[in-house]
């Protein structure tokens, strides 16, 4: 056979996959609802030197299965390795690296903001603009519940922070695949 025959593979043209993607990934895991599963996942991240940005755990429609949604920065963590290592955990049933364009992702946050007489109106106005809810009020502060994309919650935070952000709690994102448009 002659060298470089077309049916052969040219070694120079081979490319390796994997590595860093440079973007944030949202991983949705279906896991067995058992004690210790979260410890296995968290332990795997720490011993392999991966970082979790956010983590949300909750039930699914099946009582035996929980959903773990986590976000991981693909600029510093090799996502391919992260998912393959997670797959090795026997209690992890399914992993989905959620495609941003076909995913509905939401996060909820609670902000307790300084709201004295002079800025109270402005806080209430932000709340309306962001279609958020006031869930607690005192003489000096207002607590606002914001639901939406991570970006929306980030920008709400930027708006209220100059007024004095006393406390903030965020859930981390949960996500679900968008239904395909009816054909």
């Amino acid at each position, binding site marked *: 056979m002659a060298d470089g025959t077309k049916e052969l*593979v040219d070694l120079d043209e081979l490319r390796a996959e994997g590595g860093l993607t440079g973007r944030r990934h949202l991983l949705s895991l279906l896991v067995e609802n058992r004690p210790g599963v979260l410890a296995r996942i968290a332990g795997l991240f720490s011993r392999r030197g991966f970082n979790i940005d956010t983590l949300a755990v909750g039930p699914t429609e099946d009582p035996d299965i929980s959903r773990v949604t986590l976000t991981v920065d693909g600029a510093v963590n090799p996502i391919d390795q992260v998912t393959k290592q997670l*797959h090795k955990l026997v209690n992890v*049933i399914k992993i989905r690296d959620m495609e941003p364009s076909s995913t509905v992702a939401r996060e909820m946050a609670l902000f307790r903001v300084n709201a004295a007489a002079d800025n109270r109106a402005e806080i209430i106005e932000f709340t309306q603009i962001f279609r958020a809810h006031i869930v607690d009020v005192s003489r000096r502060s207002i607590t606002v519940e914001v639901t939406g994309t991570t970006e929306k919650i980030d920008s709400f935070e930027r708006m209220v922070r100059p007024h004095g952000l006393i406390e903030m709690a965020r859930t981390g994102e949960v996500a679900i695949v968008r239904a395909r448009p009816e054909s």
Partner: protein
Amino acid sequence: MRAADALCEALKAEGVKHVFGIPGGASLPIYDALYDADFEHVQVRHEQGAGHAAEGYAKASGRVGVAFATSGPGATNLVTAIADAHMDSVPTVFITGQVRTDLIGTDGFQEADVTGITMPIVKHSFLVTDPHQIPDYIHKAFHIAKTGRPGPVLVDIPQDLTKMEIDYEPIVSAPKLPGYQPNTEGNIKQIRIAAKALANARRPVLYAGGGVVNAGAAEELRELVASDRFPITCTLMGLGAFPATDDQWLGMLGMHGTRSANYAMDEADLIVAIGARFDDRITGKLSEFAPRAKFVHIDIDPAEIGKNVPAHIPIVGDVKKVLPKLTGEYRALGADGSRLDEWWRRIEGWREQYPLEYEDTTDQAIKPQLMVEEMYRATGGEAIITSDVGQHQMWAAQYYHFTEPRKWLNSGGLGTMGFGLPAAIGAKVAMPDEQVVCLAGDGSLVMVCQEFATAIANDVDVKVFLMNNGHFGMVRQWQELFWEERYKSIEMGPSPDWVKLAEAFGWTGILCDRKDDLADAMRTALDADGPALLDVRVVAKENCYPMIPAGAAARDMVG
């Protein structure tokens, strides 16, 4: 049936013939059930010994090794062996007693969270919370331990649960594990691409690891190597997967591998990794590893692919299934073998210029390399050899020319000193008709010498050939070469008197310190009735060469 009896029934259903262990408070009900069990319990003298014996049993036979320990310190003593089995992918099941359920979390007597402690070093683990789970978990543990990439599985069972009555029925169907489905077949399209790449490669190297041994794929590997004049090298764990006496064999690669193997990797244009994981002892400086090569990576564990080096042609599957397909696809291409002529001329040049060699002494002093060569002759190259970790291990890898798989049992990934003796005991229990010899280091052997008693008590006829250089030899070598000869805490001193120690345990003890006596001494030890130790005094300050210094590239081998 009492749950502890169901445990034994489940083990019997899994084909268990031997388990290794030590009883204790939390495992009393289990040991009461073992009283009537149909398999043998080999009582060891330290739980680490039970763990390594289970590993030796598994490595020698391919069957799942089983070790028992009680709660707390019994369980924590297993930890080194569990970590070792994890690093070397040894199919093992560890069964630990746990304190009563009402004591869990109260810091009860002999309580240790062994599932928590071992979480990073097991393939999987089960904490029993209901006695009915016991048989199911045992079956799942065996299934997980031996399928896919093998590994250790721990089952932790609270004492009170083992005493309860349960209904037991043998489970015949495969266990239901929705999150565990190893992919074994290998993608045929990828295999075809790999075959075509091989057919176009001018400087290919096959690089096989312990995965070939685990998969029982030595024959399939030979077929691939024979399909053309592919040069082949194996890792420390892969030795025996391909006969070291073959013409296409380059020798072991890596830190103490041959120059031929390491230089071939360095200049290769295509490297086919087969059940190997590009450990740092193989790659040296990663950024300068095999800089001209593209990689085909065949492994049953997808997470190994792309972990340390990029894979240009990844193939996830059992090498036993993938290799015949690759060989078939390659043969069908009818590639012209003469394209490898120039590559072989290059390799032959290295072989001539850099053979594995050492300078023998001119007096009666015994060089360690000579001891291994003599051991090879004395055993006809056919014994199961276990080793500890250090210089003697590397010399064995270099100078004992393994031709069959499952004959070379050592601790590769974790590098556990003291592995050799208990592993030899386990191997001999599994393969009673084979000659089993532990090539021990004096630094290592003293760490587990209580297991001399195990061999006598259980009538396990193993031989120990002790390479006695009076030092932690590998550490001494590094202090000499890389730490300006600032020797610290590396001398073993004159104790123990190994012959007396062996005799104290009921072994035959023989001393050899003259070259002329070595062959006879080995013969005497091998022919001895029952366990025998041969204390061979070797040249103390010999260095193990060649060597890739830590963090250096293959090109920079020294010695």
